[in-house]
């Protein structure tokens, strides 16, 4: 047990301090909702990549910094920007999901073409996975891709395509071999969002914002070489991508930050001349949540250690999405309760406008429900924990359900 940083990591920390001191004035404002990065953000991103504070482990051949993977370094970097309140660089589905997928299973040509522009923020990606009829059961995707004259002809509909309205490219899971068993009939394509036949419609959620889109495909032509791995291997590729998404969602730093924000608010606001934290029932709920967040914070250190050793955390990793999203909901629940009647007014005009304190908490509270559901709902997570983490048996095959379709 040693929570001190090594010399190497302390040196990195010092470098980061120097970097931030020198360049912070050039950084764009942190946060600000999902919109296409502006010129200032792109410049900032390029500077970060140059210094190895973004795309650190992406090989130099593809435009990255080419460092060996050292998750403690990554944690030190993330921490430095959070502590300083400085924009930590771009975080989008292209960088977090597509790039590692191409590094793992893309062709050399695909890597050469896409990784550089993606990590620099010049190319923005969206994800074409879920469909109205294929949510938890992603492998049931029905969007068709028929190979004809060197092109896949894509027809169908995707949902939850968050940045589709400004993305340049999409990575798409579609059914190219309809006659093969469910999981073996899918392919993973990459395509330009400017291809004719693509229509993007905003999808409003319970927050009142259109954080997502629906994307419709009508005879969309995708060159045959735009496939990642082979025909019928889309399910395998998609799972590589999802692995990275699930890690993103279960971040224990977010819990700690939210706890701090909540604690600060309860210490600041008053009702009837009394601080909220002086109300025993609110204080006791805060204390319970603090205990839970402490547990996940310590657990996060353990996961970091696993990763730094290259150990698969197994069960320890599988529980994080379910555990952390439920806890997030309980944290925002206390926040909206503490705000009480005064917290009810709510105006959310767009994703890019920041709301007042109460609106921000309510948006988080509603969005937390979305996080519980998205990226594998709690029921799916509990199946995964039970089956992969605890080695409990899967559901038996059902009579009347074609075996191949499961």
């Amino acid at each position, binding site marked *: 047990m040693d929570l001190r940083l090594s010399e190497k990591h302390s040196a990195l920390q010092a470098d980061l301090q120097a970097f931030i001191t020198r360049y912070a004035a050039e950084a764009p404002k942190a946060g600000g909702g999902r919109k296409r990065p502006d010129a200032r953000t792109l410049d900032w991103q390029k500077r970060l990549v140059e210094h190895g504070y973004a795309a650190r482990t992406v090989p130099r051949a593809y435009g990255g910094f080419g460092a060996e993977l050292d998750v403690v370094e990554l944690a030190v970097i993330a921490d430095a920007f959070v502590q300083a309140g400085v924009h930590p660089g771009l975080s989008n589905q292209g960088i977090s999901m597509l790039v590692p997928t191409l590094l793992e299973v893309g062709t050399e040509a695909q890597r050469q073409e896409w990784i550089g522009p993606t990590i620099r923020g010049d190319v923005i990606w969206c994800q074409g996975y879920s469909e109205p009829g294929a949510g938890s059961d992603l492998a049931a995707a029905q969007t068709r891709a028929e190979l004809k004259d060197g092109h896949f002809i894509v027809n169908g509909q995707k949902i939850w395509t968050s940045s589709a309205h400004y993305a340049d490219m999409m990575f798409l899971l579609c059914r190219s071999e309809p006659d093969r068993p469910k999981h073996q009939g899918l392919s993973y394509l990459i395509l330009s969002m400017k291809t004719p036949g693509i229509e993007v419609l905003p999808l409003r*959620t*319970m927050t009142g914002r259109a954080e997502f889109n629906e994307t419709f495909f009508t005879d969309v032509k995708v060159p045959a070489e735009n496939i990642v791995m082979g025909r019928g291997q889309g399910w395998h590729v998609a799972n590589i991508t999802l692995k990275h998404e699930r890690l993103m969602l279960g971040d224990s730093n977010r819990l700690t930050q939210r706890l701090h924000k909540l604690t600060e608010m309860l210490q600041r606001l008053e009702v009837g001349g009394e601080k*909220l934290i002086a109300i025993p029932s609110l204080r006791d709920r805060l204390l319970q949540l603090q205990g839970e967040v402490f547990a996940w914070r310590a657990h996060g250190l353990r996961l970091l250690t696993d990763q730094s050793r290259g150990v698969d955390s197994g069960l320890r990793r599988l529980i994080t999405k379910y555990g952390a999203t439920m806890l997030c909901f309980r944290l925002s629940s206390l926040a909206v309760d503490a705000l*009480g009647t005064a917290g009810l007014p709510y*105006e959310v005009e767009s994703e890019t406008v920041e709301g007042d304190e109460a609106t921000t908490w309510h948006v988080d509270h509603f969005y937390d429900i979305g996080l519980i559901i*998205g990226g594998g709902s709690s029921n799916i997570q509990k199946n995964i924990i039970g089956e992969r983490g605890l080695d409990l048996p899967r559901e038996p095959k059902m009579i009347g359900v074609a075996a191949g379709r499961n």
Partner: protein
Amino acid sequence: MEFDLSEDQRLFGESLSGFLQDRQPLEALRRMAEPGSGFDAGLWDGLTELGLHGLLVPEQFGGAGLGVLDAAAAAEALGGTAAVVPFAASTVMATLALLRLGSPAQQAAYLPGIAAGEIRIGVGFAGRTGQTGPAEARLDGTRLSGRISGALDAGAPTHLLVCLPDGRAVLTGAAEAGVSVSSHRTIDRTRPVADLVFDGAAAEILGSSNRGPAALASVLDAGRVVLAADTVGAAQTMLDRAVAYAKERAQFGRVIGSFQGVKHACADMATMLEPCRAMVWYAAHAQDSIPAEARLWACQVKAHVGDVGREVARISTEVHGGMGFTDLLGLHYWFKRIAFNRQALGGPERCRHDAAVEQGWIVA
């Protein structure tokens, strides 16, 4: 021994539900809810014809002369349909305040207008409900000054009722000089809250003398019961819709309701929610007929149903998966209706605090 709604109560609730389902399908709900005033003139007039606003107004003043239990039955229907109509404060609390504190002349002046749908009274509390935000008011003779946030049913009021911490209540016109009403759209677009600012506004004290805090507290109690009833209705809709969705949506080659994960979630909702309905009935009946238990049950029903409502709202949304999170099915109107009810007139923490005081477990 008959513990149930009467035939009349049941039928009134059903006709109200039927009317609202008819007049307020999802697209109409979106349209009516969008302004966030919690008021739609067409719907209001229809409900006037049904007799909703005069429910508690004595027959001599043109109402039905019914009680809090009837109001609770109506509120369940309103919550069940997320109705865009002022009720808990405007109809129930204001009428009861006039009945319990008002002079005969005041009753004669206002109650007929309430029953006829011509008077809508927003209600604000200075203190007492544990609301956050400003809640101060003082009376100099008949001049009211101060600032009160979180006033209910004040999206399109003709009058305002302000409840003072000393147990007095005052009425003033919403358009009077020195009165300013800023209504805010809330998370629940079907009902706003308002900030009221009074600057020496002319106000009328209800009753000739101070009837003491107990009478006014009973008005708050009734309001809490009615909001709890609204939550039971809204939560029932969320449960019903989750069950219907679970029977229809298929994943992994099976209807999802056949998975224990989903089935047990629905069973949990039903197990929590169903006893809440009886609890609301008892609490409402206590307002009408069991004074010794009225306050404790009002506090407890508001607190407990508020907690159950939040759970049902979350679980139902989860059962709907991504669709529940979008605006497409409109499920969130009920989620937010429940969330609004939880906070208004005091959240569970405050209500349990009041329940403890009522039982002498803590000193107020």
